[in-house]
């Protein structure tokens, strides 16, 4: 038996050798782009990936898309694999900001470049070389837009927030996630600058998930009924979970004149199809569009330009020119790399414009 194993092993090695000899590394002609995507289970990421596939098909690009399934280590392994396979140019939704510098260095060592979306790369990652770009929407802005929507609502109905005091039930995404941190900061800072007193009656993570959000809300409604006037969630999934909870707990005034039949406005981020439907039924009050098509198209055009022309520095991608002025959120807060930042705008989605997206 041992002999058999040994023979098999030897056979395997021999085959490997033969095949390795016979294969040739580069396929001439086609443009190869690798896509490293953090987690296809999320709606935004999936939409982003779908658009990438579409664009690649249109341009005849050989696209290799890898799903890290939420694991930094897996994403690094996938990068290694693709580099070994001869991929040089990448579109990346990183799993974690802190790993981006390491990824950029590996890509640079292979003589390539990358554009990062959705999760911000670090300043150091962009400083690795001019072929590393940000093609994303600063998360702070999403929070800021939420704050603006809130401001508009309570300016219209000041009685609902006496003395500009906001008592918020706040549903966070996965703790430690850059979007969770920045969206929260953007919201709080903007509300405060608009003169509101911000009280978090309850604030906890629901891990981006609608059912966890609903459970959390059910608990909160039992504990804090009557003590709050606003529900904010860091994505639409959780916002819709909150909407369900409010309805089952009877917090409905059935008066759609303020834009929602719920007693309190609920605000999300992402503008998913479900969210827009909910708005159409006067349930969800508003959301913020994180533009998956915009981000992926920008990132793809940058990677494509690098792969075909050698560089994308200074070009206009998907109609967006490189940023000129620094903003407060990394990495676009560093003048040294600002020319590598393509800021894809968020869009507030309210009663006024949601039908355009449906």
């Amino acid at each position, binding site marked *: 038996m041992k002999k058999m194993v040994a023979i098999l092993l030897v056979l395997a090695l021999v085959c490997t050798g033969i095949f390795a000899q*016979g294969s040739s590394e580069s396929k001439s002609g086609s443009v190869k782009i690798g896509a490293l995507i953090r987690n296809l289970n999320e709606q935004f990421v999936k939409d982003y990936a779908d658009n990438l596939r579409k664009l690649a098909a249109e341009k005849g690009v050989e696209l290799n898309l890898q*799903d890290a399934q939420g694991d930094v280590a897996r994403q690094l392994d996938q990068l290694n694999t693709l580099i070994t396979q001869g991929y040089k140019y990448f579109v990346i939704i990183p799993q974690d900001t802190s790993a981006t510098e390491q990824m950029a260095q590996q890509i640079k060592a292979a003589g390539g470049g990358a554009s990062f979306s959705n999760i911000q790369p670090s300043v150091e990652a962009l400083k690795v070389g001019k072929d590393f770009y940000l093609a994303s929407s600063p998360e702070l802005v999403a929070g800021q837009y939420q704050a603006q929507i809130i401001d508009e609502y309570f300016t219209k109905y000041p009685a609902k927030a006496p003395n500009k005091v906001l008592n918020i039930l706040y549903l966070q995404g996965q703790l*430690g996630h850059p979007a969770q941190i920045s969206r929260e900061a953007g919201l709080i800072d903007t509300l405060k600058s608009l003169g509101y007193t911000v009280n978090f009656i309850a604030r906890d993570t629901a891990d981006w998930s609608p059912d966890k959000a609903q459970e959390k809300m059910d608990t909160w409604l039992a504990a804090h009924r009557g003590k709050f006037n606003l529900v904010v969630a860091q994505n639409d999934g959780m916002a819709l979970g909150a909407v369900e909870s409010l309805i089952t707990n009877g917090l409905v005034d059935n008066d759609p004149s303020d834009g929602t039949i719920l007693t309190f406005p609920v605000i999300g981020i992402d503008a998913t199809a479900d969210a827009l439907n909910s708005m159409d039924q006067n349930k969800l009050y508003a959301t913020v569009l994180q533009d998956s098509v915009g981000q992926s198209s920008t990132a793809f055009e940058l990677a494509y330009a690098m792969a075909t022309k050698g560089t994308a520095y200074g070009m206009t991608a998907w109609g967006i020119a490189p940023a000129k002025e620094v903003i407060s959120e990394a990495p676009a807060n560093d003048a040294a790399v600002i020319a590598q930042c393509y800021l894809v705008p968020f869009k507030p989605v309210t009663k006024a414009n949601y039908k355009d997206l449906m």
Partner: protein
Amino acid sequence: METKKLLSDGKRIASQYTTWVTFVGLLLLLSILTKGNALKWNSIRNLLIAESVRSFAALGVGMIIITKGIDLSIGYVVCLTASVAASFAQNPDYSSAIYAGQSFPLFVPIVAAVAAGGLFGLFNGYLIAYGKLPPFIATLGSMSIAKGLQLIYTKAAVVGSLNQNFKNISQGSVGPVPNLIIYVIIAAFIVWVFLRHTRQGTHFYAIGGNSQAARVSGINVERDLMMVYFYAGLLYGIAGTLLASRLGLANSLTANGMELDAIAAVTVGGVSQSGGVGTVSGMMIGVFTMGLINYGMSFLGVDSYYQQLVKGFIIIVAVYFDMKKYARRN
């Protein structure tokens, strides 16, 4: 009677090598499918690096499963130890460092992480051996505790900006051989010596095979059980250190789900869930078989949804044969 003996011996030998046969078969398949590309040195090096940290977790949980236990807390304990290690290795000038402004010698993060892992192991072991809690439940509880501690310790933030010396622990290499691979070889050797050549290692098999008989044979079942979780904890500590060093960061998502990967790997490697059976070579082959599947599918560009599907089936098939092999004897 003779025939039965012959038959079962034959089966036993065949089943002993099924893990090897599977591994080699997969290797062949992959080399054919990728025309040899997947098996160049660079690719193999990638594969070995990718599986290195999981190897430590697998060695730990492999020993535990030999004693007929289970450990669901691996993922979050490794996450915690990675965070502890990372927190002592942050650049002192990094403003959001946990110990901002302080720098520690290189041994501090390593010792701290291994100690944290060891303490968790002792905690698990105590609950299971002396508290008589079922391992499934005890480690389910400590999994949540580890996760909570990690979030509290890091305030749910990413522990990043690690110093280069610390990163070099995992990212460096000796000649063409990456450090990580060397660590795995050393660890596997030590565990092998321990399981094969020491009294306590032998006792683990006895306890897993028949704890009542082990007790009657004068084995201190409680102490040995506690120790197996302790040793596994130390390995998780090392795993955490290496992972943080390799990724250059630790956050609350680090190593999530590693328990399932590790348990699946050792099961595929022939460590029986019925206890008392398993070898270090099997565990390592299991890890690399699962790695090969992961790596091969990712190399071939198989959609991640299908990857999950394939992995699931492989685990089920492995456990199915395992149960057939051992559970229905007699």
